[in-house]
């Protein structure tokens, strides 16, 4: 009896220690990003990242706006394409497909979600970039980045929308049918509004993915530091900038990259926090 109480207490302590370490990882990440960015945050004002003349980190000018605009354009473009495709995919699975093809298509979307970003990037580089190049050189461009990102965030939107549509109470659907609503009128008038919060949560989560995605965009978007004037201009995103310059960055330059990492993380954390909150609200 005494022994089992002892092992139980021991177990509890071991588990508690594990949980504390798990919870500390996030705090450590915060701490290290802050401490690495600290030198720059102390003697540069945040406004300089927006007002410096250009991005020439070796000469001490750190204008991040081209990267910010690149990140935003690429993410917005990808959302513009992925939201309708994702929602249509979910509607197909829930309302249009036979049980067999619904399962098949859902599996396909889940497998699409499992393809690594470097493979999307590689495929984009070898297949999409030459195609875009035929349309309008140079090929490695905002458009290629948007297309690759679309493929990567589509599963998130489709699966979250699917979960939200499945959770719409059956009596809503049956009442709609009793009122003579069918097909699209029922979906647009009843199902989509009832599932709205869950769908928005999925879109917000996907936006976070798109902002933080590094490798695939890095491989297809051309990485020129500039504000894009058209879909065919090459761009560089914040995340790609970190990946490209970390290898040789030193001193202030390195610290600036950590600042941009910190900004990226705060942005994505806000979005995923929002998505989590919306998600909880929709199933409450």
């Amino acid at each position: 009896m005494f022994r089992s109480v002892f092992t139980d207490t021991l177990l509890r302590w071991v588990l508690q220690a594990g949980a504390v370490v798990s919870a500390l990882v996030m705090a450590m990440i915060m701490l290290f990003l802050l401490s690495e960015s600290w030198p720059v945050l102390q003697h540069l004002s945040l406004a300089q990242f927006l007002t410096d003349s250009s991005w020439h980190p070796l000469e001490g000018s750190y204008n991040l706006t081209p990267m910010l605009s690149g990140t935003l354009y690429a993410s917005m473009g990808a959302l513009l394409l992925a939201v309708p495709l994702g929602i249509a995919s979910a509607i197909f699975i829930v309302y249009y497909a036979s049980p067999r093809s619904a399962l098949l298509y859902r599996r396909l979307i889940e497998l699409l979600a499992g393809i690594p970003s470097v493979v999307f990037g590689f495929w984009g580089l070898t297949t999409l970039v030459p195609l875009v190049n035929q349309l309008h050189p140079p090929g490695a461009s905002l458009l290629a980045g948007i297309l690759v990102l679309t493929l990567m965030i589509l599963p998130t939107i489709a699966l979250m929308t699917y979960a939200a549509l499945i959770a719409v109470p059956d009596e809503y659907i049956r009442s709609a049918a009793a009122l003579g609503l069918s097909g699209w009128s029922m979906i647009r008038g009843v199902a989509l509004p009832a599932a709205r919060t869950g769908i928005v949560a999925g879109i917000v989560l996907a936006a976070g993915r798109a902002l933080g995605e590094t490798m695939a965009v890095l491989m297809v978007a051309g990485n020129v530091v500039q504000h894009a004037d058209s879909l065919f201009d090459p761009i560089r995103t914040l995340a790609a900038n970190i990946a490209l310059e970390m290898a040789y960055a030193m001193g202030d330059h390195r610290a600036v990259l950590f600042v941009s990492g910190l900004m990226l993380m705060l942005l994505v954390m806000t979005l995923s926090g929002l998505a989590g909150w919306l998600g909880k609200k929709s199933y409450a």
Partner: protein
Amino acid sequence: MPEITFVRSRSILRDRLVQLLVYAAVLVVSGVFIWILADLVRGGVAHLSWNFFVDSPRDAGRAGGIGPILVSTALILLVALVVALPLAWATAVLLAEFVPATSKFGTIVRYSLQVLAGVPSIVFGLFGNAFFSIYLGLGFSILSGGLTLACMLLPILVSTAEAGLRAVPENYRMSAAALGMSRTATLLHLLLPAAAPALAAGLLLGIGRAVAETAALLFTSGYVERMPGSLLDSGRALALHIFDLSMNVPGGDAPAYASALVLVVLLLAINIVAMKLAYGLQRKRIMPA
């Protein structure tokens, strides 16, 4: 009367149109998925051979194989799992079995993991570089890369294991308590075995995530393509090899296709098994034996 038929036929027309658009979207998505797979198979299958799997890369990867890269990938994965699994499962057991769902401690741990799940992988790379490689002095090594990945895997391992444990019926715990089993014995002999399929599914998802990762390994486990001699050597992961071949090595397309094919087939297999496990679980819950 004519007006009603007009409205009717217009709504039927609209229904048809929407259905057409939905089917078109599904065709596009499926088409692109098949296009990607077909491209990889077409570009890579000719380059695959037994030697490709065991040889060292030569001429910056243009010739030779991916032997050392597979070893490095496996070692990075091993380090990540050895560190992350005990932590994650201990956290999950604590959250599911020992602390009330609304307790302050549980809420803090769960919130912290939820935030961690949203951190972009490039930020994990920055952290791993600053903490493991420089602060702890591990340098560019398999150990740094593995530890960075371990941090990244925690949220998914914890959430799958916690869900699995919560799905174990309450009367298991009641019966065990009535028999006078200690909580440790209940956990080890009853709850963990009952949750095993969920733990395995989570483990596989974690492996898939880790094998697919590139950005977090760029500045932690490094680029060196030699056979690693120890965990403190730099080792190039398979995903990074694909990146390097396609971006930095002109004429590296054929081995890059072959490596991408290997990676994708591996990941599809892992994910399909994980899905089967998760699906089996669902069915068991709906139709108790």
